[in-house]
């Protein structure tokens, strides 16, 4: 990017001043909700705790200045967000940096912008992500980048990177985008996957890419138990997320329906690092 195109973002800093007794639903903590508002207006945005609604101002001090649009608004959150849900959910642009661990739904349904969590995230984070970059420096819980419970529309775009481990049911119903877990994952990863790319740099437990229709899964470590619906088809030299190595290539899931493209059935691909 040329210097002339670098826009200076306005930054709003939230500092936690009170820990919620239950969990605080921070559906309004994202650049889209903050854009064009003064700190006072932001402090008055609603936040549910259980069935009761209060304001962001009751739990955070709000300082700084928001941009006119989401794209030039950056939010920095300091303090303990362990009981805060929905931070950065549905964001379309701009930037959010959380210097803490967050609860569920962080970065879910985001379609643009950058979200960085410097701690861990709980389950259901990055659900049905459509675009943007979401990075977790710690670990993630279950249902990372998956479809919402019951839904069949999972992650479809963007880059979701977890530097630690992730739990079970990661990337269920994924159709696009890229999900990288630098540590290990538990059972059920890429179930019903129909596009996109998953990279696991550690080990995967069991049921990797079960009922996969389309897409790519790379596992650098070991798979505890391989799904029976995958067929070994050969070996190949690849560069995956900066790592050059030889991979064994599998195709599957043979037990699932497969669409055809120009008369040829399309299968998913599973690559195991040698």
């Amino acid at each position, binding site marked *: 990017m040329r210097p002339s195109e670098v826009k200076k973002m306005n930054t709003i800093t939230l500092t936690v001043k009170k820990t919620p007794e239950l969990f605080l639903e921070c559906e309004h903590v994202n650049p889209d909700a903050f854009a064009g508002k003064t700190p006072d207006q932001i402090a008055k945005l609603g936040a*549910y705790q259980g069935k009761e609604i209060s304001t962001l101002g009751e739990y955070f001090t709000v300082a700084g200045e928001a941009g006119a649009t989401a794209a030039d608004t950056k939010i920095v959150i300091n303090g303990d967000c362990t009981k805060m849900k929905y931070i950065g959910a549905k964001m379309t642009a701009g930037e959010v940096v959380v210097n803490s661990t967050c609860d569920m739904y962080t970065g879910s349904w985001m379609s643009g912008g950058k979200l960085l969590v410097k701690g861990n995230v709980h389950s259901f984070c990055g659900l049905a992500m459509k675009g943007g970059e979401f990075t977790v420096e710690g670990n993630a819980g279950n249902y990372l980048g998956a*479809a*919402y*419970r*019951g839904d*069949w529309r999972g992650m479809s775009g963007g880059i979701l990177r977890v530097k630690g481990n992730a739990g079970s049911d990661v990337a269920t119903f994924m159709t696009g985008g890229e999900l990288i877990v630098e540590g290990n994952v538990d059972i059920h990863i890429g179930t019903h996957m129909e596009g996109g790319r998953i990279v696991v740099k550690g080990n995967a437990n069991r049921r990797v890419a079960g009922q996969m229709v389309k897409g790519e899964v790379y596992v650098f470590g070991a798979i505890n138990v391989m799904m029976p619906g995958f067929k070994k088809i050969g070996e190949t030299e690849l560069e995956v997320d900066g790592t050059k190595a030889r991979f064994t290539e599998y195709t599957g899931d043979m037990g699932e*329906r497969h669409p055809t493209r120009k008369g040829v059935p399309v299968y998913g691909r599973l690559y195991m690092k040698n």
Partner: protein
Amino acid sequence: MSEFIIKNGHVFDPVQGIKGDKKDIAVKDGKIVDKVGSGAKVIDAKDKTVMAGALEIHAHVAGPKVNAGRWYRPEDKHFDSHKTAGITRIEGGKSIPTVFKTGYEYARMGFTFAMEAAMPPLYARHVHEEIHDTPIIDEAALPVFGNNWFILEYLKNQEIENTAAYIAWILRQTKGYGVKCVNPGGTEAWAWGLNCLTIHDPVPYFDITPGEIIKGLIEANEYLGLPHSMHLHQNDLGNPGNYKTTLDSLKLAEGIKPKNNFGREQVLHSTHLQFHSYKGTNWGDFESGAKEVMDYVNRQKNLTIDTGNVTLDETTTMTADGPFEHHLHGLNHLKWFNVDVELETAAGIVPFIYDPSNAVFCCQWAVGLEIPLYAKDPMRCFITTDHPNAGPFTRYPRVYSWLMSKKVRDELLNGFKKADKVIGATNLANMDREITLYELAAMTRAGPAKALGLAKDYGGLAPGMNADIAIYNINPDKFPSTGPEIEKAFAQVACLFKDGKICVEDGKVVDMGHKKTFWVDAKVNENKQVMHDIKEKFLRYYSINENNYPVPESYAPHQHIIAVDATQ
């Protein structure tokens, strides 16, 4: 109870033939009266439209299949989990709303009654639990009979009297309202992995045809003289070319006269006709058959219909037509729910997205609008979305906007991605008719009330009738011209009276009213044969004891029982 006088509104009431004249409506003790005292509370309805409360004749709003839809589609309500200010509870769900949201939303649109269209007798308790929890609106439920083993056996031998006695017994056990028939024979055939796609396809094992079931149920219904007629979901729903089976089914009512004390004139109600009015042989050459079907319906005075309008939304299909749901699942690969209800029926559920970029769905949308636009008698054609199958009932205001404004529907039609194909396969582009407020009052109030046998007390504003009254922010002299304006006016009543009590004000629920469960108690001669058969089937086949079958009083504590004497 307090007295009210609704002043200066434009009144639309087909019962009295009032077409928008300014007229005051007086309310006292839950009834509409000639006049009230000077102390009556005045409701100013100047420049507003006044109609009776609307009646929903066909929707899936309570019971095990609706609830299965709720639990297997958490994604339908994920973003609706917050409590808003006021006396209402959390309102969750779009295509399969919670019972609370169901009651509130109907009331906000000016409805005061809804018919649950398919009650599996075995799970009638569940249906009544949900009805009881649905606020404000009165409700009733139609037990399903078209695939019931008793019915199949009696009608095989043309035993109308036994069929009627069994129906009367079921209505009492389940607190049911009338006779529903879904894919006659086809749902039973589904238990054998088969279906009945014409009225001549034999039902496996029972060796009876859908035609015999339909005709027999119509006759048994008239034998009993029930307030509502037989209520039919024909065979071969949703397939190109099915209009022939639809006409064959409707023709079975020819020559049968209504016999009842409720002023009902039809012997057959054909539901969600949109899904049954398709020409062509496949989805490629699919065309509207609405004209053919409605030409026939217009001639036959003993038929009523409802539309089943596709609203082009993401929704949840659910029906006792088990094989159809399996067929849908094969088309869209989305999650499929299927259940068999022992000797009685079955059900299936599949989420469905009527995507407006797909020509087939847009054609279905057009067919749904053609049906009421072809209807010559608005007292025999009612607006439904077969909620939630063709779309959520909360879309009624939008459906009205398409029917009442050619401009609004043509804008949508011409804007479709595949507009040329849709216009070529349907007749909608050439139709200029716009449904008037008076016709709408017939299609949504007076008509359904009459078809349900409730015309004495509901669907009109004549003195003596129940004070269920909807006042809309619509000035008939300055009818709104854009779709969103029409929608908003019908989505949020200015005021809704239910049983003479204000339940909604400015679109906001202010009172939960006193909802009632309607059911029909039909008295028949003692029938030892049928009672013996019931005992035997419970012993041999049912998973529960006969004594655990009836719906106890406590499940419908606020009941409105309509008594019918069919003893001879």
